[in-house]
C-alpha cells in the first residue's frame, strides 16, 4: 500500500455532550509534511488535534462519529488501545507542562515506562532528544535540576524533547509558540523544519506568518467546519473561498 497519507479522517463529527464542536471533517495528513490548522478562536482546532491521539477520551461525555484512520486502521475501533496510539502520535501542548521532576527524568519518563531501563541507553536517548530540540547546550550541565527552573521557552523545548524521546511517528503541536518570545519561537520553528524529515507534524497556530513560513499544507476552520484545505502557498496567495481570504488578510468579522 503505497500511501503517504498517514492519518485520514472520514466524515468526523465530534460532540462535547450535546454540543457539536466538529462537523463532517474529512482530511488527509501527509507523511513528512507540516500541516497547519488555522482559524478563529473556538473553531475546533484543538478539538481536532486532540481527536487524532484520543486525548479527548479524557473528557467525560464526548462522542466521536466517523473514522480516524491511522495507517489505515480506525483508532476509534473498540479493540484499539489508546495508550498504543498515543505512543506513536505524540503531542506538545500550548502551555509548557514539564513534570515537577529533573530535566533528565522528564525526558526519560516515557521511555522508561515503555520498558527501556538501561542507564546508558537512557542517557544517550536524553542527549539525542535534547539535541533535536536544540536545548542540549543550555542544559547539558544541569540535567539533574528541576525542570521547573527553566524559562518558558526552555520548558517548551523540553516538552518537545520529551515527546521526541518516545520516537513517535506523528507529532501534534497545539500553538507551541504562543507563550514564547520571538527568539524561542524562531528556534522552535527551525526545529519543526528539521523534524519534518523524520516526523509528520500537525500544528495549530494563530500566527499567519508562522503557518506560511513552516507549513506545507494549511487547513482553515470556521465554527467546526473545514472551510478550505490545500497547499499553504495556495491558501496564502489565492484561496478559493472568500472566508479564508478574509481571515488571512485580517478582514474577518
Amino acid at each position, binding site marked *: 500500500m503505497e500511501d503517504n497519507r498517514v492519518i485520514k479522517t472520514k466524515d468526523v463529527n465530534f460532540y462535547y455532550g450535546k454540543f457539536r464542536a466538529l462537523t463532517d471533517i474529512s482530511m488527509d495528513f501527509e507523511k513528512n509534511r507540516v500541516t497547519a490548522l488555522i482559524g478563529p478562536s473556538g473553531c475546533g482546532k484543538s478539538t481536532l488535534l486532540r481527536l487524532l491521539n484520543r486525548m479527548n477520551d479524557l473528557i467525560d461525555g464526548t462522542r466521536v462519529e466517523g473514522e480516524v484512520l491511522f495507517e489505515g486502521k480506525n483508532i476509534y475501533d473498540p479493540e484499539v488501545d489508546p495508550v498504543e496510539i*498515543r505512543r506513536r502520535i505524540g503531542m506538545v501542548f500550548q502551555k509548557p507542562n514539564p513534570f515537577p521532576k529533573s530535566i533528565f527524568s522528564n525526558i526519560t519518563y516515557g521511555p522508561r515506562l515503555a520498558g527501556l531501563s538501561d542507564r546508558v541507553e537512557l542517557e544517550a536517548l536524553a542527549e539525542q532528544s535534547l539535541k533535536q530540540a536544540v536545548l542540549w547546550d543550555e542544559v547539558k550541565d544541569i540535567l539533574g535540576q528541576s525542570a521547573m527552573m527553566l524559562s518558558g521557552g526552555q520548558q517548551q523545548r523540553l516538552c518537545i524533547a520529551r515527546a521526541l524521546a518516545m520516537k513517535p511517528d506523528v507529532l501534534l503541536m497545539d500553538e507551541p509558540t504562543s507563550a514564547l518570545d520571538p527568539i524561542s519561537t524562531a528556534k522552535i520553528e527551525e526545529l519543526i523544519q528539521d523534524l519534518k524529515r523524520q516526523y509528520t507534524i500537525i500544528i495549530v497556530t494563530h500566527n499567519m506568518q508562522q503557518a506560511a513560513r513552516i507549513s506545507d499544507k494549511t487547513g482553515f476552520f470556521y465554527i467546526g467546519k473545514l472551510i478550505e484545505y490545500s497547499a499553504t502557498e495556495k491558501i496564502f496567495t489565492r484561496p478559493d473561498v472568500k472566508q479564508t481570504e478574509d481571515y488571512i488578510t485580517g478582514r474577518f468579522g
Partner: protein
Amino acid sequence: MALQSSMRWRYLKEGFFFGLVRLSAFVITAALGGLLFYIFFNGLGAISWGFLTLPPTDSMTKGGIMPAILGTVYLTLGAIAIALPLGITSAIYLTEYARQGPLVRVIRIGVNCLAGVPSIVFGLFGLGLFVVFLQFGSCILSGALTLGILILPTIIGASEEALKGVPQTFREASLALGVSKWQTIYRIVLPSAMPGILTGSILGIGRAAGETAPIMFTAAAFFTAKLPSSIFDEVMALPFHIYVLATAGTHIEATRPIQFGTVLVLVGLVLVVDLVAIIIRSTIRKRKRW
C-alpha cells in the same frame, strides 16, 4: 471632598475588618495556648521515667501508664494502616476513575455524612460487626478496624482534595506520552498529591489516637498489666484510661495528677504524630516542587 470622605470611610472599614480578623486569630491562638499550658502545668508533675515505662499499680492509683501508651500506639498505627490505603484508593477511584455523575455524588454525600456520625455509633457498629459477628472479640484488631472506619471519611476527603489539586496538565502530559492511566496516577498524580493527603490525614490520625467511644467496646481494657502479644489481645488505651480514672475509679480525686499526666502524654503523642507527618510532607514537597 465627598471622594475624600468616602476614602476615609473605606479605610476605616478596612481597618475594622482587619482588626476583627486579627482578633479572632488571636483568640484562637490564645485558647489553644491556654489549653496546652493548662495541661502542661497540671500534668508535668506526674511525668517521670517510671510513669512512662511502668504499668499501673495499687488499683491504678500509682505506677505508670506504659500499657495504655503502647495500646494507643498500636490502635492508632493499626487504624492508619487500615484507613490510609483504603482511603487513598477510594479517593483515587472517586476522582480519577468514576464517571462524575449521580452515583458518585451519592457516594460523596455518604462519605460526608459518615464523617458527621457520632463516634459512639462507630463503637456500637464495631462491637456488632467485629467483636460479636466476626468473633474477633474485644482486641486490637477490632479496635483498629473501628477507628479505621471512623477516620476513613477524613482521609478520603483529604485525599480527594489533594488529588483534585494536581494540575490536569500533569495528567495530560503523561497520558500524551503513551503512559497508561494507572501508571500516570501512580508515577505523577499520587506523588504530587502526597503532601496534601498527609496534611489532611493528620486530622484523622489525631482523632484516632484520641477517641474513647469507638474503642470502649471493641478494644480497650479497664486494666491489664499484661502487654498484648498479638492483635487478638485486649489493650489499655490512653483516652479510655483517662475516662476510667476520671469517672469510674474509687479514688477520683487522688488520681487527679495521674489523670493530667495521662492527658499530657496523649497530647504529646498526637503532637509527635503531627510532627512526623509534617516532616514527611515538607521533605516530599522539597523534592517535588512545581
